[in-house]
């Protein structure tokens, strides 16, 4: 996909003068960050530790409020959103470095945890959707396994399926391969690429890994709380513009996201 494509896609996320000071007011974690992310973009945020990339992701994911500045989601200021929890539940899927699956639940049950909030589905529909998501991440045969019975790579796939449970607008991942061996990491990145390519998913991820970071189409480099560079690397991800607009929507009781992928 070529970066120019996105000039025509709507802006989903936009920050204006985003600034975050930590409690003592001295340390600036973010300074005047102005970025725009369009629908269907695949963005990696890179930078050394302490550069403010996690803080930026927390702000973009509405997990934390900025000290100054504003974030616009689909043109609406986030500071005006009444129920941020519901907002997160419905719009954003999170993937964490340490997976954070609940150890007492099977893979199938873990995927259903976000559905307790903000899902219109009935119980059997939830189970079916969770199953479809697990099949999509390649774990259709391990749905009843507990997290500790799965490899780390498989656990992260379950976590990705969980992030997609409520059919979010975008996926945010904080070092999603940080705890994975290189083979599993590649698998997870392939999965992100597939989500992006085939479903037009907007993806923002933080990574240390230059090789993996370069697989995204756009790289924002952070340093000392500021955006150091924001580059689009044409032709790295091999999706097509049509995937953004012309999503395949097979017959399903489930919302558009529940695509059978076999």
């Amino acid at each position, binding site marked *: 996909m070529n970066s120019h494509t996105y000039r025509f896609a709507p802006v989903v996320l936009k920050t204006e003068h985003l600034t975050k000071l930590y409690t003592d007011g001295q340390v600036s974690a973010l300074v005047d960050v102005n970025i725009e992310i369009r629908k269907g973009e695949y963005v990696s945020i890179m930078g050394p530790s302490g550069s403010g990339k996690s803080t930026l992701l*927390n702000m973009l*994911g509405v*997990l*934390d409020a900025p000290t100054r500045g504003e974030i616009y989601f689909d043109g609406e200021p986030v500071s005006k959103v009444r*129920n941020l*929890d*519901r*907002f*997160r*539940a*419905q719009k*954003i*899927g*999170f993937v*964490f470095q*340490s997976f*954070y699956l*609940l*150890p*007492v*639940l099977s893979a*199938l*049950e873990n995927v*259903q*945890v*976000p559905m*307790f*909030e*903000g899902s219109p589905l009935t*119980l059997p529909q*939830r*189970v079916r959707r969770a199953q479809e998501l697990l099949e999509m991440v390649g774990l259709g045969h391990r749905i009843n396994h507990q997290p500790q019975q799965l490899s780390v790579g498989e656990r992260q796939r379950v976590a990705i399926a*969980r*992030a997609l449970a*409520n059919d979010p607008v975008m996926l945010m991942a904080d070092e999603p391969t940080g705890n994975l061996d290189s083979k599993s990491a590649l698998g997870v990145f392939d999965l992100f690429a597939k989500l992006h390519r085939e479903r037009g998913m907007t993806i923002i991820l933080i990574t240390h890994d230059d090789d993996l970071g370069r697989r995204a189409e756009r790289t924002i480099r952070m340093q000392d709380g500021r955006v150091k560079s924001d580059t689009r690397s044409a032709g790295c991800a091999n999706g097509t513009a049509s995937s953004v607009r012309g999503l395949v929507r097979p017959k399903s009781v489930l919302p558009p996201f529940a695509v059978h992928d076999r």
Partner: protein
Amino acid sequence: MRFSTFILRNVLRRPARSVLTMIGMSLAVGAVVAFVGIADGLSSSMLELYQRRGVHLVVTRSDSVNPLSSTIDDRIGSEIAKVEGVKAVCPGLVDVLSFENLGLNNVVTQGWLPDAFMFDELELLEGRGLSEASRGQKEIMLGKDLAANADLKVGAAVTLVGEDFKVAGIYQTFAGLENNMVIMLLEDAQRLTGKRGQITGCTVRIVDATPERIEEVKAVIQGEVAAKLNLQKKIKAAEPSDMLKTNTQIKMVKAAALLISVVGLLISGILVLTVMLMSVFERTREIGILRAIGWRPGRVIRMILMESVLLSLAGAVVGSLGALGLVWALSRLPQVNGAIPATASPQIILTGFLIALFVGLIGAAYPAYRGARLLPTEALRHE
């Protein structure tokens, strides 16, 4: 997956801790059910002694701590009988005697007149009852449990305070309390206990006993009848339920039951608080994740409260069953004299469950608040 399944999984995650918490809660609920049950059973079985016999008023001494061990002039019986509206009066003397030759101490003994209506509810199992013909014959009747414990049959000889008595009959009644008693004629009881001319009190039946009529008779007994015998302000006529309410011994049993319950509940409340707080701290990061993926604080609160209530109610089930077993075992002890019914009432068990629910909710309130207050970013940093 239902939310309830999720709750159950969380509780089962630490089986040892959950079981211990449940046991703690079951001990508290069990203590409440058993002790309150015993106290209530005691007072209701005493109340039944009067109610089944249609007793409307009980006349006892009012100026002593324990009306059962103080006495009144026995002429009061015939005076009350003369009061308008009184159907029948039954004067009685209660005391505790020992069967010296059998080594049985503290046997409750009742002395009644031969024609007393109190005899009506005794069902004769063997031998015959006491009557006018028993006067001077030194005859007694035994409750069936007492007869069985002492291994006494009709016709057996018994020594009471140096006098030889003969067992004329063995009876049973609806009230467990009475199946452990000795019944004899009033005159024999007065002689044996050295209380000649004295009775413990009277039970009174009233004709057409409306509340107003009962009040009238009560006033006459406490007024004119008392004055005639020079007992002004020394006797009290009360309905059986009121009498039991002011009975010091029952009050003490109830106070002890209440104390045990309160202490038990405080301990179990603190136990729940500690366990749930520990559980929330342990799951700081996990709760942070739930918040990050969109759980409202309210759902975190519900999760913690429901886990706690599940543990508490499981404790209540075990505790109630344990208490029923304990009450049953206690009721079988000969020392208890049948004063405790073999089961606790459904209301008390329901109370036990409500208390468990309440303690579960209160104990988990602060942990739930702490859990709900966790910020996702703070929790995620907790690595």
